[in-house]
């Protein structure tokens, strides 16, 4: 019970209920309660039903090698906003098993599969425990600390070979197959028998046999993707069809997987910054924002005031660019071939011009630093921004509204399609426009304010139907709110430095853990970082909004027609750089 970890009253309530089975995590700069593995379901049921922490933000794990344990960490929040709670379970590395919580929080399904894939922790009673990001023949679990890749050089960057000896090597020459492909060391392609597809299809069949049928009909399994223009990247949907109706659907992901988190553990804190741009490449400024505030909280520093304003200006411009893009492409999915998408692109292009002039790159900005931003925004760029905000974007949003909203074809294709009720949305841990269009006014800018959002005036938009049409409308609403924020930022932005102190390339982050969240255009973007005082993090986890949002895809698609599946996916608005990480 040090001064750094003040105990929240809610923790005391849980502790008094369960007594000796729980204990507080008393390591300095660590938070939360450690529960025994066999008690976890009981504890979480109590937290969900009696304390009303109905929203599971993230499930993740940390490997404590060389200690013989893996920590499973649950971050829970209330959907009405407020401080979260953190529950931990320790399992052994040898025989790691933990009860699955999918029946309490269905939103944990894909996240638990991810932990199984990358850490090798088995979740008992999980409905569909298969590898998710890696292929089924992959040897080992890469996020375990004792796992090394075939081209392994050193545990952390910077690699000593680069200077002063200068011994860089072509990555291709390190690979036994002399190509970009990696196989396990003793892998024999001739002997390999993939069984994953059959398991996947069986899982679909089992479900569909439950439906009562008077007339015997055959089911059809259709694979949509991975190479398909409607899937916004390399994403695959396996749908079981009864006629034209979808009975069950499973997303298959991981085609773009590069293990962002392992890369993060190898990099120094500053080196991670440009990598975060590549997560959700449509909202790079927002990703860096999330990462920067997480590390700033760990280091206990405050960014410069002017930098705070610039950050929010950039984050909101990103949100507009991303929403306008997703509106354009949603209509593309409906069949309004590319005209709305191209109109949307014009506006996005103008916003990216600003990023290019300010940060140096259109999409991979790398603009934020711990304690501020790289360079000051000059008058010329400020004028460009205010020109856009005051003279163009509002008009163009209205034009898009006039162009599409009343269109009868769009309305009949979108209204009542892919409905997600508010209870379902919260249960599936859905965030962002998807959650708000289901009638839940949950926005981290208000629920758990960061930056200077608490000083700005804006509304949380909600819609009540939770269908595709509402998701389209809510994005238009949010663009208007973003413009409102931008106008305030432009008038209030103070003069001053944009960086507290000098930018350090070797930052010292004190040992401890931190979970920082921001509201990205697609939902809650969380960064869970554990530091052990070294130049590189011990654990770097990204709670990607699109990845968690597609957990609800099957629920939305069930009962819909196969043609609507594409539209529903479009309305979720996934970015595969973030889903696959």
């Amino acid at each position: 019970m040090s001064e750094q970890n003040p105990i929240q009253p809610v923790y005391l309530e849980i502790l008094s209920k369960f007594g000796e089975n729980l204990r507080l995590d008393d390591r300095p700069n660590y938070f939360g309660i450690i529960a025994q593995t066999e008690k976890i379901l009981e504890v979480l049921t109590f937290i969900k039903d009696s304390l009303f922490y109905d929203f599971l933000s993230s499930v993740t794990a940390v490997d404590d090698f060389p200690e013989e344990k893996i920590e499973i960490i649950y971050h829970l929040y209330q959907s009405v906003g407020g401080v979260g709670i953190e529950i931990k379970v320790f399992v052994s590395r040898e025989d790691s098993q933990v009860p699955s919580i999918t029946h309490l929080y269905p939103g944990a399904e894909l996240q638990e599969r991810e932990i199984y894939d990358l850490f090798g922790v088995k979740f008992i009673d999980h409905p569909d425990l298969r590898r998710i990001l890696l292929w089924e023949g992959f040897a080992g679990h890469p996020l375990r600390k004792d796992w090394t890749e075939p081209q392994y050089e050193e545990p952390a960057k910077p690699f000593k070979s680069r200077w002063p000896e200068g011994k860089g090597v072509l990555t291709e020459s390190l690979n036994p197959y002399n190509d970009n492909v990696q196989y396990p060391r003793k892998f024999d392609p001739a002997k390999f028998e993939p069984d994953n597809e059959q398991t996947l299809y069986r899982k679909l069949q089992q479900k569909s046999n439950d439906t009562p049928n008077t007339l015997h009909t055959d089911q059809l399994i259709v694979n949509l993707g991975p190479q398909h223009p409607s899937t916004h990247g390399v994403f695959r949907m396996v749908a079981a069809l009864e006629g034209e109706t979808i009975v069950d659907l499973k997303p298959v992901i991981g085609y773009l997987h590069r293990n962002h988190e392992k890369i993060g553990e190898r990099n120094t804190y500053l080196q991670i910054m440009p990598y975060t741009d590549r997560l959700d490449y449509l909202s790079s400024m927002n990703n860096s924002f999330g990462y920067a505030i997480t590390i700033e909280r760990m280091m206990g520093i405050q960014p410069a005031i002017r930098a705070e304003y610039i950050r929010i200006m950039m984050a909101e411009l990103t949100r507009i660019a991303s929403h306008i893009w997703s509106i354009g492409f949603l209509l593309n999915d409906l069949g309004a071939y590319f005209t709305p998408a191209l109109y949307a692109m014009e506006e996005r292009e103008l916003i990216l011009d600003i990023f290019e002039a300010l940060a140096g790159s259109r999409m991979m900005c790398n603009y934020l630093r711990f304690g501020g931003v790289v360079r000051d925004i000059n008058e010329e760029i400020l004028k460009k921004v205010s020109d856009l905000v005051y003279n163009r974007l509002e008009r163009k949003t209205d034009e898009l509204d006039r162009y599409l909203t009343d269109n009868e074809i769009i309305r009949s294709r979108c209204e009542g399609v892919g409905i997600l009720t508010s209870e379902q949305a919260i249960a599936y841990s859905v965030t962002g426009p998807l959650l708000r269009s289901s009638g839940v006014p949950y926005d981290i800018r208000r629920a758990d304010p960061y930056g200077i959002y608490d000083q700005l005036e804006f509304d949380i938009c909600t819609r009540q139907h939770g269908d595709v049409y509402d998701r389209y409308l809510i994005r238009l609403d949010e663009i208007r709110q973003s413009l409102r924020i931008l106008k305030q930022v432009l008038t209030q932005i103070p003069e001053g430095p944009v960086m507290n102190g000098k930018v350090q390339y070797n930052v010292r982050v004190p040992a401890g853990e931190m979970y920082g969240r921001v509201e990205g255009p697609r939902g809650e973007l969380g960064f869970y970082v554990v530091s052990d005082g070294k130049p590189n993090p011990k654990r770097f986890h990204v709670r990607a909004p699109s990845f968690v949002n597609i957990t609800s895809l099957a629920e939305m698609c069930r009962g819909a027609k196969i043609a609507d599946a594409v539209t529903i996916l479009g309305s979720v608005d996934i970015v595969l750089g973030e889903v696959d990480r």
Partner: protein
Amino acid sequence: MKIIGAGVLKGLLVTLTHFFKTYTNDLQKRIKRVSKKELIQDRSSAQATGLFTIEYPEQQLVPPEEYRMIPFLVYEPSENGDRNYRCTACGICSKVCPTQCIWITRKKDEITGKPVAQSAEFYIDIDRCMNCGSCAEFCPFDAIKMDHDFEISTYQRGSTRIFTKERLGKSLDYYAKIRPENYRIEEAERKQKAG
């Protein structure tokens, strides 16, 4: 009364306006005899209507000063035509590089064999470089800077894409040309330090 199809027609009116604006806009520009440079500027401003694209490679957008492509090494030309690289082989760029695509060997004094503050070799694996600009940001000697030249595609991968010191070197004048504002500030600082 609600007319079915009114919403579609209302939307199509927007498309029609866009379509006609491309012609009227073009005509206006021709009558006013707007120069090509102004035309490009106009099309990337908030007032842009009508045609939004330009015809690359005949017309080219001027990249903003802070635009960054792959790094280059700044050298100061000397009278005898040698390149005086500013790089001192301190290794900071290779340490901060997120992809570890820079590797440097230090030059050694020919007589004593002690390392001197110059690089013997300097390589950048361009295929791995992610154009983040960290090397230029943290270089204490203003020796490595980000280029504006984005037309660097080649037909082969592999060793041809590992740029040597010779290939990476660009003169100080070139740097002053692409980043005039940064150059001005840095030169003033250098003068202050020297004097």
